[in-house]
């Protein structure tokens, strides 16, 4: 649906080392204060923001009783349709900005990380355990497998079982497909929250290392916005 790939920040992969392990901080127990999110969206982004969040809530509520595959499809479709792809520079006037789901919904725009984060968080809210989910850095082959043009990109992977092939949620191709049917994507590295923080310790905004990490700051902001 979206013809342009996501462009990761220059040093995104390097920074990833510090970030990937932090993902579990806010996500170990998914849940949230949707009313707070809705109110904040209204305050920050006006009626369109409120409408987006309301639609997102409706989608979550509708998908909750469905099976895993349908949850994936609903979520993927919701964001791919609702959110317009754009560069961070155009949306946030920053070279590389990781937006929270609320911000993505409020602006109704985002780049590949914003899509992936929003999908990941929605799936967590829908009750899919973290160890079945991965945020995966991939090299995307543009314009077909034979074309030399490639781009850094991020997708969400779903592993029905530990040894299985993952299902890929992407914004380049709107359909949820098994990894085998995505020859245009070459996986580089993945991260998730499984087994990271035993005991459920949570990140705190008072921890000075939090601010060093783009991903962790997203998590903290999410928490402040009512998404845990």
């Amino acid at each position, binding site marked *: 649906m979206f013809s342009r790939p996501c462009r990761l920040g220059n040093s995104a992969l390097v920074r990833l*080392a510090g970030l990937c392990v*932090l993902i579990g901080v806010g996500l170990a127990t998914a849940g949230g204060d949707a009313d707070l999110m809705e109110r904040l969206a209204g305050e920050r982004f006006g009626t369109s923001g409120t409408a987006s969040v309301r639609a997102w809530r409706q989608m979550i509520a509708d998908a909750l009783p469905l099976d895993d595959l349908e949850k994936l499809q609903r979520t993927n479709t919701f964001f791919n349709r609702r959110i317009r792809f754009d560069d961070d520079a155009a949306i946030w006037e920053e070279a590389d900005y990781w937006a929270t789901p609320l911000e993505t919904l409020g602006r109704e725009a985002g780049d590949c990380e914003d899509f992936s984060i929003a999908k990941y968080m929605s799936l967590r809210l829908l009750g899919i355990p973290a160890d079945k989910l991965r945020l995966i850095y991939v090299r995307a082959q543009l314009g077909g497998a034979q074309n030399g043009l490639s781009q850094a990109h991020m997708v969400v992977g779903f592993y029905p079982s530990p040894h299985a092939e*993952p299902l890929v949620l992407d914004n380049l191709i709107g359909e949820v497909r098994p990894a085998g049917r995505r020859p245009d994507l070459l*996986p580089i*590295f993945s991260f998730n929250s*499984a087994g990271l923080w035993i005991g459920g310790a949570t990140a705190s905004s008072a921890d*000075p290392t939090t601010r060093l990490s783009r991903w962790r700051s997203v998590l903290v902001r999410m928490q402040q916005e009512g998404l845990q």
Partner: protein
Amino acid sequence: MSLIKQLWIAIAIVMSLSLGGSLVVSTLSARHYLEQQLQVKNLDNATSLALALSQLPKDPVTVELQVAAQFDAGHYRLIRLTGPSGDVVIEREYAGPRNGAPDWFSRLIPIEARPGVAQVQDGWHQFGTLTLESHKRYAYDALWVGTKQLLLWFGLGGALTGLIGTLIIKHITRPLRQVVEQAEAIGERRFVTTPEPGTMEFRRLVRAMNTLSERVRTMLADESRRLEQLRRQTQHDDITGLLNRDQFMNRLDSVLARDDARSAGTLLIARLGDLAALNQHLGRETTNRLLRDIAAQYAAFAVPHGDWEAGRIGSSDFALLAPGQRDPAAIASELAQRLDTALNVTAEGRGIRLPLAAGAFAAGESRSSLLARVDSALAVAERAGERAIEIATESTTALPFPDPQAWRTALTESLERNDIRLARFPVLGPDGTLLHYEAPMRLMLDGTWQSAGYFMPWVARLGLAARFDAAVARLAMRETATSATPLGINISAESLADASFRSELFTLLQGNPAAAQRLWIEVPEYGALLHQPEFRAFCLALRPFGCKLGIEHAGPRFARLNDLHELGLDYIKIDAALIHGIDSDASSQGFLRSLCTIAHSIGLLTIAEGVGTEAEKRALPAFGVDAMTGPTIEAPQPLQASPAPGAVRL
């Protein structure tokens, strides 16, 4: 507990609280920092190893080499790779001993850094989960060394602060110590002033104390002045300012009854011829001026000697009482010469008749006998010429030793034989309680016990006073050491000025502090006046021993003692001359009352000497006298040792 000690404890508590608190805080924050660093290192290293593994071929040898290389080259406690279903693929664990920081320290302040976890990918498939844990040994070591250093610095800082604090406290409380000393001095009725310190509270305190001290001092000075005024009014002749007849006779009685070195002396009387004719001839004004000129010579002659007295004992009779002076001819000619010089300045003076007679007296002679002898000599002089001098015949009392050398031999022999004892005369309060026994010396001379008045004039004249006083002090210390009865001893004026005697006395008192407490040491008023600096030093030196210190034969000159209130005296014995006839003499009563008031205001007990009649004894307490001694004062119970035979007392 002293203030300084309490301040010290307060400082110590505050210091250990603050230093201990900051030690705990900095150790904990160091631990927190180390934990964060370790954790970031765990996470970052796990991620980079997982990233590297994800890119490499996944054959077991490559994976194991990769993990082993990371483990062996780095500082890790554990690196473990588990498969997607939880089975351990490879594990490296450090099993070596953990040294450095002691175990108790690691247990007390545990460093808890969570292991780093990252996912290893094999294409789209999961390959495993990597768990990585850094070794904490170096963190414990760093924390341990840091804590030790901190402790050392805090220890040094604490010691330094304590040192500086002590100095500051000392500096701050120095004025406090002075104030305490001043307060104690006021408690002892010494009115000293202290320089004002810088600290505001202390300055106000010191100022208040100084004001108090000064006010009391001024009050006492006023009172002394008033006393002196009163005394002059009642005891002195209006025109000449010399003692009047009554007072002079009282002094004479008192001297004759004395039991010390000054009980012998000379009485000298000059008689202005035909006063009535002079009055008529020259007029009252000129006559009075003449009288005053004569009186001035008498006074000038007497004053340097301390206890010499000049009096106008009749309208035309001028008398001089010179205790301790045994050569009547010498002072008669000296006084006559001074009178001549003074009178011959004016024509009226040159014309007047002023015959003079002098007579020596010794202890025990009655006043009437002495006056009779001098009177008859004066009659001879009157017949002999205008300015004739006549020496009265010696008293009929036979002298046991013909010359000074014989006296010296006899006295030193008796002293060396230790033929001395102490008499006992009680000093009682109005209700009969015993203050102490006066213990004058008795000496065996020629087989009889002689009273001090008999031999002391010779002792003084021969310069033996210090030796005799020392003997008395030794004996008194021996007696107070074995009995609980307090004893009073006299120190003569000559001994007061004798350094070797003073040091011997101090040694004696130091030897038995308990016995020294029961010793009442008194110095005659004239001695204290003559040797004021020595007396002052003597008083200050004696104070620590706890013995009582007093002035005997205190009289009109008492108030002349400088800084009396600073000396720390305990009592005064008021001269018999003041006590005599106190029941009927209104002028003396007023004076005595004021004297007692002054004495009480500076914390002195007042003791009346020579109480001779029941009437005096009954009257005295009303004037503020605290205790009495004299012929009518008897011991409450029979004495163990009866007084020496022949002892003569007031």
